[in-house]
């Protein structure tokens, strides 16, 4: 086992004597000890039997079809889209579909909801379950109507004899209120679960519901205050809790001074379990006051932490990785570089960023004896259930998890902490407890998207052809993702894995280069002594990778005096879908072939620029063209318009897709221009919306969208893909406008001015 970090002496040597102002928190032996002492492994499974039709669907006497799924709708509209798929396959009216989402006692475990895989993975599962149900219903109708099934037709949940439509029977009459009691073939599990693969579904040519903009089921109630979010759950006898957070996860409360909250009305209890400290009160305001006022003396953090973003990049550069993976390799990069007429080397920086849920984490727990009920917005109902069970020492199936939608979370609620907080507090007082994090809890403690330090070396030959592409990314693993223990678990003694979940994937480019290599280095990160937890943030690592790769491509195109679109197309011959989105975006935006930068050094206060970038994610391809204005005196970038061409296979709901794309792009403009978590050696400094600004109405760009519908293909995800290329397209537009390259996100005015001063590269 290689030590995860260089010693201080080695480090000084490696950096040529540069003093790096921090030391690693946890000594290696302790990290190893933690791994060896790792907690009871968390099961990630549960739920109803996938091979029973009743696990998927129920038809009520009034013809209403209940659809049971553990793929949760995170506010992106996937509940409506899955409902469309079922309505289509069953031939029932969309108005008769009722989605029953995320109850662990009433659904099959379809795996966690993340990585934009709902329609790709759960879509076929729901479609086949519905197709199997339709086949079963037709068989029963055939017997009742005395007509072979192939001479029956279904519309709006009524089966008719094709040749004699007066002869009919409804689904409700066939099975309404009864169980199907029908077995269907099922194999695999979670994302890889296959249901009734033997049943032939409808041909997409026959679709009348899939492919239409069915209005979202959830939206009307969201505009009236009637929508039952997790934050609105109220249980009889429920109390309110708040958690008092430590400086770092493994700080210990040396002293809890209960006299400090004397006089706060409605207090119920101060709860201490291991290092976990919380308060419970009759009212929410009393709990908030008590959590703020409670004087807790914490043991000092065991070491020092990188003293800010610059020190963080030094740490990434100078620390030996614990894994080094080659994500892609072909040809011989060294030879390709040696043979290059022109060589390029650049380093790109992408910062710590937040998910930034508008409403912080929230859960209600009711722990009674050896049973518990949990309500929250977790992206992984079964993992959250099993985590609470482990924390409380209960059997998995004795914990009942009920999904209630939370804030749009972009990965944040895959590691869902609040249920465990609420569970500990509920057990301590024997009553249901609702816990909602405060804004500084959420900003401070949400697991962040990790920073990336990416260096690309590439080469061009004399004809402007790419001879080599050598991509090296250094970043942190996810300390708080998938099956890793949540905060309350860690504070009560359940150890995380030694290193967390290392980075995967590759450089994210869709290009075919003769000599190409992408290396991903995971740098050790502090699992518990750590105020900066890490986890998957929308299109994990994607924006930084695309920013680096597409900036490098742009730089080479400029050096070769080749139009940036044309230059990219030369390497997309084998990827026609990528070439198609690029051409579609260029056409929509009225792209004029040109060399870059167009007008470096021009006069006037405002410099206008246009840049392009493309990205691919799990089958979805996106091209974006950014039109920006830069104020030369202030360095402020205004993104005026993003033109997007998007191909995610067959489109289930065009308006829902546009909604996702608009949201992805605008959120990414925010991440590109202004978002960077501030921290120092004591911890996170961005604890509200002033210290972590996000985009506001005045800065919203136009988003012009071209949808490419591939009716012959399955659906791929759209929740993340169009967030990836915005930063790269904007940076390339910056080069077009300034003649200098932006190498570090976010593109703040100071960095823009620096690029402006640097001029053409």
């Amino acid at each position, binding site marked *: 086992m290689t030590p995860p970090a260089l010693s201080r002496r080695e480090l000084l040597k490696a950096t040529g004597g540069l003093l790096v102002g921090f030391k690693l928190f946890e000594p290696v032996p302790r990290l190893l000890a933690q791994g060896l002492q790792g907690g009871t492994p968390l099961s990630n499974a549960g739920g109803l039997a996938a091979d029973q039709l009743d696990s998927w669907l129920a038809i009520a006497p009034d013809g209403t079809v209940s659809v049971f799924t553990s793929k949760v709708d*995170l506010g992106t509209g996937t509940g409506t889209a899955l409902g469309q798929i079922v309505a289509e396959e069953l031939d029932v009216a969309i108005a008769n579909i009722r989605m029953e989402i995320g109850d662990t006692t009433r659904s099959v475990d379809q795996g966690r909801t993340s990585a934009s895989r709902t329609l790709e993975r759960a879509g076929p599962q729901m479609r086949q379950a519905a197709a199997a149900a339709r086949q079963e219903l037709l068989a029963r109708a055939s017997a009742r109507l005395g007509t072979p099934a192939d001479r029956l037709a279904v519309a709006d949940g009524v089966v008719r004899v094709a040749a004699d439509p007066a002869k009919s029977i409804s689904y409700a009459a066939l099975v309404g209120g009864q169980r199907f009691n029908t077995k269907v073939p099922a194999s695999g599990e979670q994302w890889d679960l296959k249901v009734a693969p033997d049943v032939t579904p409808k041909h997409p040519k026959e679709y009348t519901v899939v492919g239409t903009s069915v209005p979202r089921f959830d939206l009307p109630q969201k*505009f009236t205050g009637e929508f039952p979010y997790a934050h609105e759950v109220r249980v009889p006898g429920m109390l309110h809790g708040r958690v008092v957070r430590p400086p770092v996860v493994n700080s210990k409360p040396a002293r809890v001074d209960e006299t400090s909250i004397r006089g706060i009305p409605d207090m119920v209890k101060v709860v201490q379990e291991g290092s976990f400290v919380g308060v419970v009160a009759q009212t929410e305001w009393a709990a908030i006051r008590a959590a703020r006022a409670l004087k807790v003396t914490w043991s000092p953090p065991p070491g020092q932490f990188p003293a800010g973003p610059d020190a963080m990049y030094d740490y990434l550069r100078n620390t030996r990785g614990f894994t080094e993976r080659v994500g892609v390799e072909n040809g011989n990069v060294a030879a390709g570089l040696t043979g290059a007429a022109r060589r390029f080397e650049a380093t790109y920086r992408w910062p710590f960023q937040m998910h930034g849920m508008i409403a912080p984490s929230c859960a209600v727990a009711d722990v009674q004896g050896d049973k518990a009920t949990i309500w929250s917005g977790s992206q992984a109902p079964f993992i959250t259930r099993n985590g609470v069970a482990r924390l409380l020492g209960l059997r998995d199936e004795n914990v009942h998890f009920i999904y209630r939608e939370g804030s749009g979370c972009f990965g944040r609620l895959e590691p869902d902490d609040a249920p465990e907080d609420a569970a500990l507090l509920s057990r301590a007082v024997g009553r249901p407890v609702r816990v909602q994090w405060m804004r500084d809890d959420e900003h401070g403690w949400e697991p962040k998207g990790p920073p990336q330090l990416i260096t690309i070396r590439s080469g061009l030959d004399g004809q402007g052809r790419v001879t080599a592409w050598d991509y090296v990314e250094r970043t942190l693993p996810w300390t708080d993702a998938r099956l890793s223990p949540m905060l309350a678990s860690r504070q009560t003694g359940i150890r995380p894995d030694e290193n967390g979940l290392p980075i995967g994937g590759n450089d994210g480019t869709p290009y075919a280069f003769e000599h190409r290599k992408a290396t991903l280095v995971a740098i050790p990160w502090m699992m518990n002594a750590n105020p900066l937890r890490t986890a998957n943030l929308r299109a994990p690592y994607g924006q930084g990778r695309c920013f680096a790769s597409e900036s490098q491509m742009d730089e080479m195109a400029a050096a070769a005096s080749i139009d940036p679109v044309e230059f990219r197309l030369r390497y997309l011959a084998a990827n026609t879908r990528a070439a198609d989105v690029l051409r579609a975006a260029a056409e929509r935006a009225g792209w004029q072939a040109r060399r870059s930068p167009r007008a470096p050094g021009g006069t006037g206060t405002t410099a206008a620029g246009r840049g392009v970038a493309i990205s691919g994610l799990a089958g979805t391809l996106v091209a974006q063209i950014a039109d920006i204005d830069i104020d030369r005196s202030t360095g402020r970038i205004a993104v005026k318009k993003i033109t997007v061409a998007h191909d995610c296979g067959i489109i289930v709901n065009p308006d829902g897709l546009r909604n996702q794309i*608009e*949201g992805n792009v605008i959120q990414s403009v925010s991440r590109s221009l202004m978002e960077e978590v501030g921290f120092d050696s004591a911890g996170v400094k961005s604890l509200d919306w002033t210290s972590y600004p*996000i985009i506001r109405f005045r800065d919203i760009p136009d988003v012009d969208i071209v949808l490419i519908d591939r009716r012959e293909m399955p659906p791929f995800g759209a929740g993340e893909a169009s967030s990836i290329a915005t930063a790269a397209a904007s940076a390339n537009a910056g080069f077009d406008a300034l003649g200098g390259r932006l190498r570090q996100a976010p593109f703040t005015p100071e960095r823009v001015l620096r690029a402006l001063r640097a001029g053409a590269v």
Partner: protein
Amino acid sequence: MARVSLRVNGAARTVDVDPTTPLLYVLRNDLGLHGPKFGCGLGQCGACTVVMDGAAVRSCSLPVTAARNRAITTLEGLGTSARPHRLQRAFIAEQAAQCGMCMNGMLMTAAALLDRNPNPSVAQIKNALDGNLCRCASHLRVIRAIQRAARDQA
């Protein structure tokens, strides 16, 4: 504890609460009005917005005693899904949300805007809503929805 009389959505309500309690918690927990949301508790994001005497205010940082005998309108007072306000109809027509957590603030701020300016320009809409954060980034749809609602009333 203090007894505080409020006028919420046209009805007189009396609550007995810690007088330092922000209005938001009284609305949500004592009066069962879940339209206004907790977002930041700092008046920074707008999720908790209610209309008080015609102006959009942040209920998370307004002590309940400051709302005494003032006319409070919450999202529930605007309309219901059975009988939606024209703004709510317009937001539905434009499908102007994703998770919807910020939508209370968007709608209540827009309601106050349209009351004083029935035909706002896009710039005026952006200006009025600039203090309302939306992480899902439904901004373009929100602008379209408010324009649609303004047309409806015209």
